């Protein structure tokens, strides 16, 4: 009896599988001569490349809520340099190829953004920055990987607006020294963000003279037991965890199953996921999370924060508020406000002039407009220079706390039971 039909189907299935494995990217020829000729009548285009679908979609929805509220506010106050702000949101699906394709398509249509938010992930930012550099378009975004992105020589128009996760490395090293850890393990996502985070911890631990052993996981992993066992065999005194969402839950679940309750530190990425809400207390024994100090309910907050929270709670993107709190909304808001401050202080959105201002040390942070960095934006120092396009942390930036819950305002609350 013939067996060919089944074989053919299987062969075709193999071909479809290959499609899953192959990232196909298209490219559009870029007309680099198309310069921005924006006048007072043309809108100030604020281009946002984010993942509206996929694992971070809900978080992104909150960020978009922040962008929209800020754009509305800026337009209410007369726009930027007299130009009305137009928000353009592109769904890059957190895929660098898609992000570049969409940006090139947009540029090829004859439109030129005045400022770009270049992706929610470092991988997307990494793909967009060369295109933006070739068109001299300023990018003010919140990528994590300082190691990969802080290269003003390669990406002269790309500026980060949040303190990089790389700064967590030196912060943790101080904690490790204070606690007397002799060896530390790190489990991180096999992604640009995870690798950037690991590089930062590795450098900081090397400087502190504490050995660091590591393991990675794929973001599609469904169990972390083997990785944790591998690290456990190294007998570390503490574990650092980088990641977000389901993978972090798998880590804590496997850790509890192994009965491995060594001191564990979730980095800022892992801590932004509501661990206390999703895991039983016994899974979080000896777990500390690194939070941004301004996110704690008992930290001093900017004057306008409460009004912003009230607006968010009644806005179109309120659905994500109970899960993520105010932070992602504030990220969206602050980026627009920084773009306004930079363009206003430079008197133009011309990439070269804005870049010159930001690198000059003369940029004045719009403390009154910023919501995500504590009272008077004291948790961030925009220490941009020709050598670095990432802001610096201050003593008000980070803190280690037990996995917190969130209050009605979406701020972190540390309780005895949390």
């Amino acid at each position, binding site marked *: *009896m*013939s*067996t060919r*039909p*089944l*074989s*053919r*189907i*299987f062969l*075709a*299935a*193999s071909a*479809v*599988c290959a499609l*899953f*494995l192959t990232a196909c990217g298209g490219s559009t020829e870029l007309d680099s001569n198309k310069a921005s000729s924006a006048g007072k009548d043309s809108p100030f285009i604020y281009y946002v490349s984010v993942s509206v*679908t*996929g*694992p*971070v*979609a*809900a*978080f992104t929805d909150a960020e978009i809520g922040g962008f929209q509220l800020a754009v509305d506010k800026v337009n209410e106050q007369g726009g930027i340099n007299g130009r009305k702000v137009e928000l353009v949101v592109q769904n890059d699906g957190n895929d660098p190829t898609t992000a570049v394709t969409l940006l090139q398509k947009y540029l090829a249509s004859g439109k030129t953004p005045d400022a770009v938010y270049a992706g929610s992930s470092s991988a997307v930012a990494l793909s967009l920055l060369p295109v933006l550099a070739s068109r001299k378009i300023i990018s003010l975004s919140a990528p994590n990987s300082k190691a990969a992105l802080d290269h003003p020589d390669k990406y002269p128009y790309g500026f980060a607006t949040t303190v990089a996760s790389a700064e967590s490395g030196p912060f943790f090293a101080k904690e490790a020294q204070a606690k007397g850890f002799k060896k530390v393990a790190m489990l991180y996502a*096999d992604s640009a963000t995870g690798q950037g985070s690991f590089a930062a911890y590795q450098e900081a631990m090397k400087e502190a003279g504490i050995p660091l052993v590591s*393991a*990675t*996981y*794929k973001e*599609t*992993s*469904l*169990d972390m*037991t*083997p*990785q944790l*066992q*591998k690290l456990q065999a190294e007998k570390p005194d503490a574990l650092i965890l980088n990641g977000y*969402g*389901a993978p972090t*839950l798998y880590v804590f679940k*496997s850790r*509890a*199953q*192994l*009965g491995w309750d060594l001191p564990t530190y979730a980095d800022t990425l892992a801590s932004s996921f509501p661990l206390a809400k*999703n895991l039983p207390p016994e899974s979080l024994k000896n777990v500390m999370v690194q939070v941004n100090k301004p996110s704690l309910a008992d930290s001093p907050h900017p004057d306008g924060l409460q009004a912003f929270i009230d607006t968010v709670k009644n806005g179109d993107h309120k659905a994500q508020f109970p*899960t993520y709190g105010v932070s992602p909304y504030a990220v969206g808001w602050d980026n627009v406000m920084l773009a306004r401050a930079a363009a206003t202080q430079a008197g133009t959105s011309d990439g070269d002039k804005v870049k010159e201002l930001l690198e000059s040390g003369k940029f004045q942070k719009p403390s009154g407009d910023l919501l995500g960095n504590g009272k008077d934006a004291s948790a961030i120092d925009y220490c941009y220079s020709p050598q670095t396009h990432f802001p610096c942390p201050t003593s008000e930036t980070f803190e280690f706390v037990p996995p917190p819950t969130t209050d009605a305002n979406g701020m972190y609350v540390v309780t005895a039971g949390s």
Partner: protein
Amino acid sequence: MTTIWSGLVIGALYSLVAIGYNTVLLASGVFNFAHGQLIMLATYASFLGSVTFHLPWPLTVLFATIAVAVVAIVEERVAIRPLLARRDIHAALITTVGASTVMSGLAEVTAGSDPKQLAIPISNDPLTILGGVIAPMDLLLIIATLAIGLGIHFWSRRSLLGIASLAVAENRDAASVRGIDTKLLGVGAFAVAGGIAGATGLLVGAHTYAIPSLGNSLALFGFVAIAIGGAGSQLGGLLGGFITGIIFALSARYIGSDYPQIVVFGVFLAVLLTRPRGIFGRAMERVV
């Protein structure tokens, strides 16, 4: 032994996908790439039953079984049947990928992208068995997968309906001429595959949580499982899944966390090169 248990748990997930692939492939000749998504939907149905509706676990399982079977039947009617009528099996392959995308998209839009924890009926405090640690729900998942895989393997070889589905897989026209209702068998296979996915949703979700990306995580390795075990062989799919899971876990533990996928795909290629029909593929064809 803990690593082996971990591999068996992940392997059970891949085996369940392989069982679903094979069930539909044998009876209707279609490779249903959306089966991973049916398992994902099963975890959401189980979440609805156990958390939202507070149903006792037998009713949760029943609810998920029926719900996912219905979704599978709808998939067959909308994405497969019109193409089978035109004898376009290869196009049907593409439409299952489309159905897969629709299912994951709908799950994400309606339930959000954050993981949802299911209410499980027993204490999940780890057990120590044969020197290794495993959660009770994970142990049940392995046992259930073995029972389902072996059950469907023997059913497909010893029951009239099972043999009829093998006949359809080999030659749809000849089977039809011999009086087999191929359309009914096809839709029945989707219903059975969906029902099995639904019935195991509580066990799967206890390990993975309900997340929209689950289907994509499972689809590829489920395919590897049947490629290793043998397309069209339920026993092959079952064992292929467990083999894949154990290789994955052992590689991550002893070679390095960067290598599991490389090792698994290395084995996958080696099997394809040496035994293109998989370890158990040939045996199934002789029976037919």
